[in-house]
């Protein structure tokens, strides 16, 4: 467990300091956070759009843990440890179709798409596929607890988190109007950034609007700082909202279809939430996105961006120009953030940095996240000791 003193982080934002440097540059603390912050909670692993059909599988090495997401014949997605129960061989090496079963490439033990061990070729000798000591019923793939929401495949690796519906109840309620089918925009609506920073810095930057006029000056022409508001749900999520969202238009004046049944709040409103720990969501009346932060190392994160629309026809060729315009716009915005998160990472090697002084007015969402991390690492009962 982390050995850093987090008492200052847990103070009210006006008196608090941010997480100490070790939370960004120490392998030991990275390991503590892996367990308490990412494995014990519901973390984003991949998205359903990457495995659209039964028999599709996506392997993901999540914080060193080999996992594979598989779409079953029933259309549901399950996540398994990507390790054969026989000799521990990696089962699925690359995304794609595994077929009707997952066949280990080593000795061809085969697992159904829902994880059951189906056959064990030659396990009792040549041409003998059974053995008294091989109980297939106890040798299925190890399933990792998972749940799909807004097309994001969440995993609770430790199996100890509350049910997802309880864990996410507040954000589900907040965005109840957006509980609609999502349609991925296709190849140009998926891109990623490989950034040299701790994953938390991407969360911290995402959930505050304070930096917008400086880092994203292009927004100043129509989306001023005062057009934004903070969102803070302690222990759950934080972020920002805007009151002046303007849909992207094509050259001939077309815009994307809106999600049906939205209230007028969303005519010009949009919200951007960091759903703890590692998924960044955005919703607008005509599109939404999810950014999955893949924590590769203490100072290395891959940001996976996936953009969705309200109607399936938006993925058709006639919308390609507008999809590209929208994707390019977001690519440009997120790219502008890279120097910031990488700069903050390098800044954490400043030995006299004390975690940082928050703006009580502007940094509430960031402090909200820091406090959540601190509570995960140092539960109140332990902190009081």
């Amino acid at each position, binding site marked *: 467990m982390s050995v850093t003193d987090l008492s200052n982080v847990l103070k009210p934002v006006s008196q608090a300091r941010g997480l100490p440097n070790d939370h960004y540059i120490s392998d030991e603390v990275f390991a503590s956070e892996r367990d308490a912050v990412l494995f014990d909670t519901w973390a984003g692993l991949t998205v359903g759009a990457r495995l659209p059909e039964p*028999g599709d599988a996506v392997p993901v090495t999540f914080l060193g843990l080999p996992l594979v997401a598989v779409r079953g014949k029933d259309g549901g997605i399950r996540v398994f440890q990507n390790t054969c129960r026989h000799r521990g061989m990696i089962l699925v090496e690359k995304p794609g179709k595994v*077929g*009707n*079963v997952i*066949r280990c490439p080593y000795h*061809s033990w*085969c697992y159904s798409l829902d994880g059951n061990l*189906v*056959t064990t*070729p*030659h396990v009792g000798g*040549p*041409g*003998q*596929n*059974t053995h008294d000591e091989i109980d*297939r019923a106890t040798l299925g793939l190890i399933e990792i607890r998972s749940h799909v929401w807004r097309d994001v495949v969440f995993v609770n690796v430790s199996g100890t988190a509350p049910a997802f519906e309880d864990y996410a109840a507040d954000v589900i309620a907040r965005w109840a109007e957006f509980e609609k089918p999502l349609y991925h925009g296709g190849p140009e609506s998926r891109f990623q950034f490989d950034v040299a920073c701790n994953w938390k810095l991407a969360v911290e930057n995402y959930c505050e609007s304070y930096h917008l006029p400086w880092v994203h000056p292009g927004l100043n022409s129509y989306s001023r700082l005062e057009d934004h508001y903070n969102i803070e749900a302690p222990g759950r999520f934080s972020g920002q909202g805007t009151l002046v969202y303007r849909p992207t238009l094509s050259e001939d004046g077309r815009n994307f279809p809106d999600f049906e049944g939205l209230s007028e709040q969303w005519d010009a409103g949009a919200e951007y939430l960091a759903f703890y720990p590692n998924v960044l969501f955005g919703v607008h009346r005509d599109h939404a996105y999810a950014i999955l932060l893949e924590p590769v190392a203490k100072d290395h994160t891959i940001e996976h961006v996936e953009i969705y629309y309200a109607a399936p026809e938006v993925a058709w060729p006639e919308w390609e120009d507008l999809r590209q315009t929208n994707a390019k716009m977001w690519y440009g915005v997120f790219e502008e953030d890279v120097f910031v998160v990488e700069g903050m990472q390098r800044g954490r090697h400043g030995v006299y940095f004390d975690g940082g002084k928050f703006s009580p007015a502007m940094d509430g969402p960031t402090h909200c996240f820091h406090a959540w991390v601190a509570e995960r690492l140092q539960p109140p009962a332990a902190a009081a000791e």
Partner: protein
Amino acid sequence: MALVTLYAEAAAQADAQEDRDRAAFFLTHAYVFALEAGDARAKQFHARLKSWGREE
């Protein structure tokens, strides 16, 4: 699928020669590849292996 057919033929030949072990070996391969490919023959291969006491 060519591999399924080849192994099934090899199994049939071995079975015709009353070499049950060799037939079961080849049929196991036919079964595994049929299973993987979603080939409908997997069901009959499984049934035969089971009747030979080679499969559950």
